[in-house]
């Protein structure tokens, strides 16, 4: 079992790199044969990544959430998995490279620095916590993908506004599709974040006798949740659309990343396990 963990830890960055290259080549050169090949690469990578995460859980007797590098590998998996589902549902295959690269970078960092801890704090062995973290990471994956599509939307928007018709114009799907992809990702992210908050709300009083609802992590999470909730409401009600919503998705993502960084590394919070 130990060898599987080590072997897959070494293999995963390579697999993500190969998958990324397939999407990259297909973006620059419209090779029809690569359309299915790249999806197959992504599927195999995700399958082996799932095996890796399960192996870690069994080997070390705790969910892989006990240090930031374990979180990174789970996040890498969630981001690519969310994209894979989106690609299957929409059959829009031309944007994968912008998503897979994030997984590749996260996985490289994780593989280089991940610590194998048999001994962890008791509180981190909880499966309820594991579910909370996993759904939170799925939530942040949705938010990340929404931001990526928001960014691509703004790139294409800029080319169209300035009547320059480069590779972005030629290869990306149209603005409406990019907006839809971003919105669906944001909705899924918001939904899973809601699940994460709910599970966290159940787990927190059981795990910690003394905690404050003014904890920086709780405030930051509530802020991000409210921001996305409002954005989705205004979008559905038709008050906001197009560029405005896309800019919001990017701002929301930046706030989520910044607040996670601050609360996990700088502020004093019960959420700092490291």
């Amino acid at each position, binding site marked *: 079992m130990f060898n599987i963990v080590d072997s897959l830890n070494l293999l995963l960055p390579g697999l993500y790199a190969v998958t990324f290259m397939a999407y990259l080549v297909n973006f620059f050169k419209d090779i029809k044969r690569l359309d299915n090949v790249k999806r197959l690469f992504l599927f195999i990578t995700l399958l082996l990544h799932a095996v890796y995460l399960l192996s870690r859980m069994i080997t070390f007797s705790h969910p892989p959430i006990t240090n930031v590098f374990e979180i990174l590998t789970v996040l890498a998996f969630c981001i690519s998995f969310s994209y894979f589902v989106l690609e299957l549902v929409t059959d829009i295959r031309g944007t994968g490279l912008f998503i897979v690269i994030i997984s590749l970078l996260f996985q490289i960092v994780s593989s280089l620095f991940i610590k194998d801890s048999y001994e962890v704090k008791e509180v981190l062995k909880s499966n309820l916590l594991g579910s909370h973290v996993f759904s939170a990471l799925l939530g942040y994956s949705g938010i990340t993908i929404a931001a990526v599509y928001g960014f691509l939307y703004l790139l294409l928007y800029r080319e169209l506004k300035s*009547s*320059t*018709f480069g590779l972005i*114009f030629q290869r990306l799907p*149209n*603005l*409406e*599709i990019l907006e839809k992809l971003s919105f669906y990702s944001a909705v899924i992210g918001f939904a899973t974040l809601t699940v994460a908050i709910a599970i966290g709300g159940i787990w927190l009083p059981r795990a910690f006798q003394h905690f404050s609802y003014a904890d920086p992590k709780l405030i930051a999470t509530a802020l991000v949740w409210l921001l996305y909730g409002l954005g989705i409401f205004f979008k559905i009600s*038709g008050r906001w659309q197009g*560029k405005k919503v896309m800019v919001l998705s990017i701002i929301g993502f930046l706030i989520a990343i910044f607040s996670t960084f601050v609360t996990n590394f700088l502020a004093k919070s019960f959420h700092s396990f490291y």
Partner: protein
Amino acid sequence: MDLLAISINHRTAPVELREALHLNQDEIRAYLQELKESLLSEGFILSTCNRTEIYGLPRHDKIEFADLQRFLTQKRPINGISDDHFQQFFSSAAVNHIFRVAAGIDSLLVGDNQIFGQVKESFQIAEDQRLSGPLLKRLFDAAIRVGKRAKTETLISEGAITVSYAAVQLVEKIFSNLSKKSALVIGLGESGEIAAKHLHDKGIGKLALTNRTTEKAERLAETLQVRAIAFENFKEHLSEYDIIISATAAPDTILGKNDVKAMMRKRSGSPAVLMDIAVPRDIDPDVRKIDGVFYNDIDSLSVIVEQNMRKRMDEIPKVESIIEEETAAFFSWLSSLEVAPTIKSLRDLFEQIRAEEVKNQINKFPESDREKVDILTKRIINKILHMPTVELRKSADNSTDSAETMEMIAIIRDMFGLDKKTKE
């Protein structure tokens, strides 16, 4: 192979001469009948707005390119036409040329979609007029295959290469489903009418037309079953449309920045596409600075056209590779129509059948008779094949390239499946 071809096209002659020699379908039929009686044993005529071409097998070897050219030019008085306006192709060059034409790489607009249909039509007319034998039929099949392969295996016909099509390509980069969008076309001169018809063909959800001359707008609106708006009131309706195409002949702008700002306020920021294909421009170009407005004029649409043309030009080597393959296949088939290989293939086929049957049945005969069975069956085969072999050789002695010989060979090869057997 004595295939002759002459061509007057966009590369060799100005539009006035090409127009003068353009033939409609009835004229093509009549010309083919005359050619059949005087010059060609097989042939076809291709005539479009950019070329008129005659291909054919001459009735006898004294018939030359000049005869075909004279045939064409003497039908109508044409000032200024000379031999220099014609290209001439013989045998493999003629095959190569028709393949290039069918694939669209000889067209004025490379990758032209229309030419393939026009080439197929010319083949059909030749077949209807009974001016195509096995050789031309094979050539037709190969040319059609080249055209299809060029379209499916390369990107030679991809991307918009006219301003109207580029406008639609641009719209499709903003909106995903045209059937849920609406468009207004302002000005129904040639460009406006083409744009309106194009949007209609693309399945736009709602289309409206407006023109200074109301009757023109109403006439086209009735044809396309869409709405006509009075020119005096069209600004009140601007916000109802996602796409506005302006193509009037107005000397000044008809839509200013304030008009578009007011339109966008009513649309609550929902994106709008403004295509200004008029010269001079109808819409103040400053409107591109308004959020949610995508403004393009002829210059920016021409950029898309140029890019797509460059991409098509990059595909030409792939198409030429397909043409090379099909040309080689065609001439390989042609060489199989020589007499000696056909006689050999026929004899081999009969011998194969004889040997198999003898092998399967020989055990029913006593040992002493088996050699006799072998000899007897060989004699039967030789007697059956004697007449066909003699006739084929006689035909070969007269001329191996004659249409009659080729027809005989083609029939024998088809009837006995000699080409299938060769592949097996």
